[in-house]
């Protein structure tokens, strides 16, 4: 029993090289991670919520959770994958909480930004992009984003959203065709 416990300990200690970080180093790492992946997570959130304001808040929330994860000293080997996983879980929570809202309310909150964090032109441009895939299935949108925009491999996408690589590939293929239809490309 003792031997087994020791074995597990040894495995945890020696399989992965570790480095020990203090607050300052860790914060720098955190800052760098935001600089690198902030936009990607924002895009992902945009796909999930279709709203600049909400997507920004969600992005911030994703990184806060990421910090808590770092702080707890958890194994952090691939920050990108971890960020997407957090964002995906956050979106699920968000959908659960989402109450049915009246169309005019939705318009007020979503399509016309209340706080001018982004210029109206930019928001309009973003909206155009999202409109193209507007009523596509949520999971179609996210595979399109992760594959074609972020350039992730189907296997990586699969682990992030909790599906098999095969299912992701099939979905990707169909979503691409649907997108092409929306872009008025005759196949």
């Amino acid at each position: 029993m003792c031997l087994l416990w020791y074995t597990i300990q040894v495995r945890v200690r020696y399989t992965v090289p570790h480095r020990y970080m203090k607050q300052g180093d860790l914060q720098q790492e955190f800052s760098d991670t935001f600089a690198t992946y902030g936009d990607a997570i924002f895009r992902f959130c945009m796909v999930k919520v279709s709203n600049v304001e909400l997507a920004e808040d969600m992005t911030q929330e994703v990184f806060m959770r990421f910090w808590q994860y770092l702080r707890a000293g958890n194994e952090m080997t691939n920050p990108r994958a971890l960020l997407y996983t957090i964002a995906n879980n956050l979106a699920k929570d968000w959908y659960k909480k989402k109450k049915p809202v009246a169309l005019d309310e939705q318009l007020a909150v979503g399509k016309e930004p209340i706080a001018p964090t982004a210029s109206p032109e930019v928001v309009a441009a973003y909206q155009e992009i999202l409109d193209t895939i507007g009523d596509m299935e949520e999971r179609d949108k996210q595979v399109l984003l992760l594959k074609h925009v972020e350039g992730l491999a189907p296997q990586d996408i699969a682990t992030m959203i909790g599906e098999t690589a095969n299912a992701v590939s099939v979905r990707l293929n169909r979503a691409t065709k649907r997108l092409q239809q929306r872009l008025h490309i005759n196949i």
Partner: protein
Amino acid sequence: MKDNRDTTEYFKEWQNMKLSETSRARIHEELMEYADFHAVNESVSLATDGRSIEQAPHRGALSVFKFSFMPYLVLIAIVIGGGTSYAAAGALPGDVLYPIKTEVNESVKSAFTFGAEAEVALQAELVAERLREAEELEAEGRLTSAAATTIATNLRRHTAAAEAALQASEESDTRTFGAIITANLERFNQLVINDASLAIDLSMIGRTGADGSFTTSLATQEIAVSELQAMTTARLNSLTNVVTTKQAELSAEAYAEFKTKLDTASELSADVDVATEADARAAFNTIAELLGDVEAKLSTLGTVKIDENSGAIVDIDFSRVPALRIEDEMRGDVTITATSDDSESVDSEDETADPLLEADTSIDINSSGPGGINIEGSGAVRSGLSL
């Protein structure tokens, strides 16, 4: 291909969807504040390889064993080490594992023995063990002079240890162990009866009392300092004499070495103040060591003649270099039986073996130490001692 271009363009546009600069700055600032507020306690260890975070838990249960060979190495080492040690327990002199048995196993036993009585008991046990070995070798016709010498050396070592422990304890309960030791030593002497040099002088080691019990103490068997002085001087003189007369036949280095040692011994001997007994004994021990060194070296250069009474070297014949040294014999190159007339063990296929048969090895025991047991020159081997 226009189709693809359109799609690609669409994705490119999508890629340009970014946080606005103001939002980015605001979020960054808020995140840093958050990180400051939820600061790390001391430090955090982070894994730094490139594996995806999700991959870690996906390993099968058996993969636990993949990288963790260290504990198994330890286990294997224990098993092998223990196995060797265990296997050595049955070894006899001449066996590869025999040194492990006497040096490792028994030293470990001794190290875990606390108290003088336990030590005496252990040494008695070890003496009995040596006897078992000697008898077993005898039964197999393998009791060569080398083996017998090894056993005799060990016996003297055990007896000395037992003596020392007995001195410390002063307990009468240890007498039974003393009796066991004495009885075993007598049996050993019977075994090697035709080789007087191997016999252990019981009178020097311990005294068997009238009631058969082992009565021993430093005082009863101690050699008087004056006697010790006389013996040492005799030995020193005869050695000096031999070295001086045979100077021509010795190499320059050997002579210089002997001369230095003998001069040192001589100086020490002159300075000995017999009045302070402990100091005198210490001095004689040092001298005995020096003389032992010289004797040991000499005995490898030629055939030495030893005075029966004093045990000192009185002459050396360089023309008859001992062809057989104890190391050679222990390597098992040549098998010579000291006690057996079994023709098989004297292998005649080696023609040069004949002269070797004349050579014999023995250990000279010179009783000058405080306990009466002092193996000169720590196992000095002299060859050619006629029996």
